[in-house]
């Protein structure tokens, strides 16, 4: 008899730990041939709420970490992902991509992490300014992270899409609660394991799996979330997000028709979307 695999249980990732959904619910993930792949947690609004608490707690220390530190951590994520390239390729392949395409997606994901790691201590230099005001003051404007960010990951490209939405948010000092692709969720939880082993402080990244329709309302309306990033093209959903976000002036970011494999899918301007500009004045006259 050939050896039996020990199948992985795919739990969610909150506050640096892997709990099951507090609701105990699941949905079944099948491959293209309708074979059983895994049971995914059907996360509840309470899971989301707990994740926001964890993300809020982690925000202050993460935003206070040096840019160098954040960059090194993102680079470490790339190292860890590179080391487990085969595992991720196999997972994406199991969910329906060809093996070649799966490998390409993983490599693109690794390089994207390296790309944003490299921005950690540079975006400030291109987005800040010393302002030559007309009075004797030293005046400078510099970006600061917004806070806790909800992210609805793209439905397609469960790994590359997730990383492309997440990396610019956290490299800029924000913390995130991310809802994974409903149809391609396996990579997201395996990626949570990568986050767990890369010196990312607990609560900086929180990953839930579940139903977008169920959770979208809470992700857009939670009063302690400062920004929401939506990857998708559903007008109704975008409308709803806009309306709910206005309650506490969440910053809204929509990635509608992004081809995550192209170079246009990465940019320092994506980092800027979850930054606030602070301007400070100080007299120069003695």
């Amino acid at each position, binding site marked *: 008899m050939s050896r039996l695999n020990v199948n992985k249980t795919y739990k969610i990732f909150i506050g640096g730990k892997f709990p099951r959904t507090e609701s105990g619910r699941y949905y079944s993930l099948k491959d293209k041939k309708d074979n059983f792949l895994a049971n995914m947690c059907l996360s509840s609004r309470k899971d989301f709420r707990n994740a926001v608490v964890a993300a809020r707690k982690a925000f202050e220390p993460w935003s206070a970490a040096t840019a160098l530190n954040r960059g090194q951590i993102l680079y470490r994520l790339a190292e860890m992902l590179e080391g487990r390239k085969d595992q991720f390729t196999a997972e994406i392949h199991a969910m329906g991509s060809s093996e070649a395409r799966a490998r390409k997606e993983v490599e693109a994901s690794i390089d994207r992490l390296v790309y944003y790691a490299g921005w950690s201590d540079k975006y400030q230099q291109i987005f800040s300014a010393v302002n030559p005001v007309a009075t004797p003051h030293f005046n400078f404007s510099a970006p600061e992270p917004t806070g806790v960010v909800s992210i609805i990951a793209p439905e397609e490209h469960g790994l590359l899409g997730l990383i492309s939405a997440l990396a610019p948010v956290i490299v800029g000092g924000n913390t995130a609660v991310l809802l994974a692709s409903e149809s391609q969720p396996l990579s997201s939880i395996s990626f949570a394991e990568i986050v767990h082993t890369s010196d990312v402080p607990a609560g900086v990244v929180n990953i839930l799996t579940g139903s977008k329709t169920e959770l979208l309302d809470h992700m857009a309306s939670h009063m302690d979330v400062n920004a929401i990033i939506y990857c998708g093209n559903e007008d109704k959903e975008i409308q709803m997000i806009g309306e709910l976000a206005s309650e506490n002036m969440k910053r809204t970011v929509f990635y509608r028709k992004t081809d995550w494999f192209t170079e246009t899918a990465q940019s320092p301007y994506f980092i800027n979307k979850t930054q606030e500009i602070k301007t400070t004045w100080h*007299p120069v006259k*003695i």
Partner: protein
Amino acid sequence: MDVTDNQDVFTSSWEYAEAPESQDHIQIEKRYGLFIDGKFEEPLSKKYFQTANPANDKLLSEVAEASEADVDKAVKAARNAFKKWSGLPAKERGKYIFRIARLIQERARELAVIESLDGGKPIRESRDIDIPLAANHFFYYAGWADKLDYAFPGRKVKPLGVAGQIIPWNFPLLMAAWKLAPALATGNTVVLKPAETTPLTAMKLAEIIRDSELPPGVVNIVTGAGETGASLVRHPDIDKIAFTGSTAVGKFIQKAISGTSKKLTLELGGKGANIIFEDAALDQAVEGIVDAIFFNQGHVCCAGSRLFVQESVADLVIAKLKSRLNSLFVGNPLDKNTDIGAINSKKQLETIKKYIDIGKSEGGQVYQPECNLPEHGNWCPPTLFLNVSQSHRIVQEEIFGPVLTVQTFRTIDEVIEKANNSPYGLSAGVWTDKGSKIFHLTKKLKAGVIWANTYNKFDATSPFGGYKESGFGREGGLHGLKPYIKFE
């Protein structure tokens, strides 16, 4: 009892036992060749020179002496590698440089020990400052490789080609990082000449570069002395020269390349003014004075070697300073408790001694704490010169050693004038608790780097370079990319 009296009642009693850093894990070859085209090779010159430990005069290794023919070989290798290197997708270039950064981190302790053995600086400094900064410099510039479109608004850029880089002996590995990282990130290839008294960490860096699988010829390292450097500067197929060293040699280089199309950046000497106002956090200011001039034995181009202290607090500050000097340990660089290490070479020690004699003959009042200096090696205790003024030679000329001149001042305008009254303009320090005074001073001082309420702070993201005869061009930060590119 006067605060200025007798800070010596606070002498310590508890002596620390020797705490030598372990050396048994490091590897130094008996002999190193030149690093050309991705491998170590015998020099065409067939000549080698020795490098010794300045703390005990013991021989460490032999390195190759590159002749003009060797330099030519290296430049050819760099030129050959240039097309492919600059043609690589930028993000792949970046990943090579990230690898180098990581390898430096992995081998950090060995590099720190060798840096201290070869150059004389305390292990505490090489371990905690030199090596981490070097790794971070590669890390920072690795990230720029595929982002140059954002670095120059409205312009696309290209590399210059082959860069010839000559570095000094005071921060050997760090200076190599400062030169190599931005050059490589922007797509250039390099021929690097380390200083002749400190070639070893450059040789270890060559090993790291080889291990990183950087394409052969992208970085070439040719060891040698002044002649090797001159060959490099003169070579017709070099597009860019970057030099860090003395102002005298910098001027010589600028003259030598005039009429050619070679680009040049220079990072030269300095005579930094360190200014203490009466409303400064005085205790921390004293610590800042010590860091400014005794860090790395004062072998620092941006050292705060001219102290200006406001007259109303001068007696107090000088008393505290003398007391602080008494608690600095001068000794074996490999001892973790050493504060001040060995002077890098006999030649440099002679220069320093010469200036101390000049200072004495000029009527300056010397203060040196009692130090048990080791028998062998090159040593100089921390030295203060009081009662000196702008007209004294030791206040005007760069000594490049642990010697601090002390002047008083009365008003803000006076100290600004005196601080700027120098052909140099590399650095300055301002100590005051008042914000507007800080900004006023930073605006008026003619120096490329100004530290307020701190000193000798360096970061890969922070541009460094001088005004006037301290050189031109900036290293570090966004501005550090400019010297290695041209606009399309």
